């Protein structure tokens, strides 16, 4: 019962359906950009996107009209500023309105943990004296059956499919991850289906001991996709392209420039290798 190895196009084609709840996780590190681009290429619609930090990848998916709903806790371009496409969707409904299911990081972490453990809700000491619960009916309270204390409660997140990017898989489909992991493990284990794109595939991984390993039998599909996290990064393989993150601010600022860029570099390219090549050509 080894994991299936698929092309990215087949993995997205099989696992992502219009209207599905889809999480692309990876906190700054190992963001599955190539998977997001392929979802855009296959023109999926009405997705419920889930991600703690939407980042450029969801700015792209939202701007290209893939999403109807967003569950998130921080929606900016880290260290740079706004996600202009996310803002345009929320402020002006372009290209379509976007329903927000808004949390704090701590709340969303609790929701992913609950999802991974198949508990119906997660709890935390949080949200206290903020306006978030008033705007999100999914933030409630639960009373401790021992002390009577009131705690914040959030419903479990269980995506239909979670996409992750990782450094390496073995031929059985076990995936090893190193570096900043955010809530990737919980998002992976909370999902009904799990697809992982990886930088490389090796014959055999060394025992991970206490490191993070996703066993092959919890993974639906592994995709060999070098550079699949770019412009995010893969610790030990390539660094974050901070200059691209800064450059994105100008690309995404207006609708026309954004559409032209996406047309040229994503829709106009067959796959992630072609996407990266097209950036190389532009830089030259």
């Amino acid at each position, binding site marked *: 019962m080894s994991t299936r190895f698929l092309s990215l196009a087949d993995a997205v084609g099989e696992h992502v359906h219009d209207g599905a709840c889809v999480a692309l996780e990876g906190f700054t590190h190992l963001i599955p950009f190539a998977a997001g681009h392929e979802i855009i290429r296959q023109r999926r619609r009405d997705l419920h996107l889930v991600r703690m930090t939407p980042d450029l990848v969801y700015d792209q998916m939202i701007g290209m009209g893939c999403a109807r709903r967003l569950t998130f806790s921080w929606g900016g371009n880290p260290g740079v500023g706004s996600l202009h496409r996310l803002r345009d969707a*929320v402020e002006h409904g372009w290209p379509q309105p976007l329903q927000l299911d808004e949390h704090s990081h701590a709340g969303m972490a609790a929701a*992913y943990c609950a999802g991974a453990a198949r508990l119906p809700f997660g709890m935390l000491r949080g949200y206290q004296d*903020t306006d978030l619960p008033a705007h999100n009916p999914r933030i409630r309270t639960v009373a401790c059956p021992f002390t009577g204390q009131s705690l914040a409660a959030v419903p479990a997140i269980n995506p239909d499919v979670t996409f992750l990017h990782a450094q390496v898989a073995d031929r059985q489909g076990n995936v090893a991850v190193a570096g*900043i992991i955010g809530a990737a*493990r919980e998002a992976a284990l909370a999902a009904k289906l799990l697809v992982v794109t990886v930088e490389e595939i090796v014959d055999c991984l060394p025992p991970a001991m206490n490191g993070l390993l996703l066993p092959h039998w919890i993974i639906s599909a592994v995709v060999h996709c070098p550079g699949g996290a770019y412009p995010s990064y893969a610790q030990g393989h390539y660094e974050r392209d901070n200059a691209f993150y800064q450059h994105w601010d100008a690309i995404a600022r207006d609708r026309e420039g954004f559409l032209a860029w996406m047309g040229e570099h994503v829709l106009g390219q067959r796959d992630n290798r072609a996407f990266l090549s097209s950036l190389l050509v532009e830089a030259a």
Partner: protein
Amino acid sequence: MTIAAARLLWDGCVCFVGIGLPSAACNLARLTHAPEIVLIYESGTIGARPDVLPLSIGDGELAATAACVVSLPEIFSHYLQAGRVDVGLLGAAQVDRFGNLNSTVIGPYDSPHTRLPGAGGAPEIALHARQTFVMLKATPRSFVPTLDFRTSAGFLEGSGARARSGAPGGGPKCVITDFGMLAPHPHTQELQLAALFSGVGVDEARAAVGWPLSPGAHVGIIDPPEARELEILRDLQARTRAAHARPMTLPL
């Protein structure tokens, strides 16, 4: 601002660090008077010692120099919520006179004038850190009498409201801004002028604040940057600029 904030941090203190000014201030402290400061970034890096400032909260530099990297759920539950953080550094788009913060939205939530990034770690940092330092530039639009949205609790309506609400952390110890510092009044907890950068007048500070700013019992003058502080900060910024501008080889 960065230097003034760095001076408030002590050696060995455990800081939950946001990106931007807070990260610069914490690393400056580490490179000057507080070599054993413990920097926790919400990405899960504990004890990071970056050589250049990260652009994002999760640059590889942080993981590679950290004592260890834990998951985001763990950093929030086992460290922040468990009360292990001495100082939380927070930015925001708006602060009100009781140190409550808005980083969610300008205008009504459902039809916003400006949609901001949102809460991130802030609500729980503000709730649990033993104290928080707030850093933001002052204008009457950012230092406001009433927030458009309360993302993170400061002293609520003041006069002990925060303590009565049962918040475990101590709330904002000060607000560091471009004219100086505000600090809460010991009883009303209204933010008052606590100190000015040298050369800045009280009127200038008042003009930048959207509520009638009261002077604190003592309004100090913040010592100008020392040569060593400036040199270390400029070196750090220069290294950072160079690193972020370095063209990256595409992973092809």
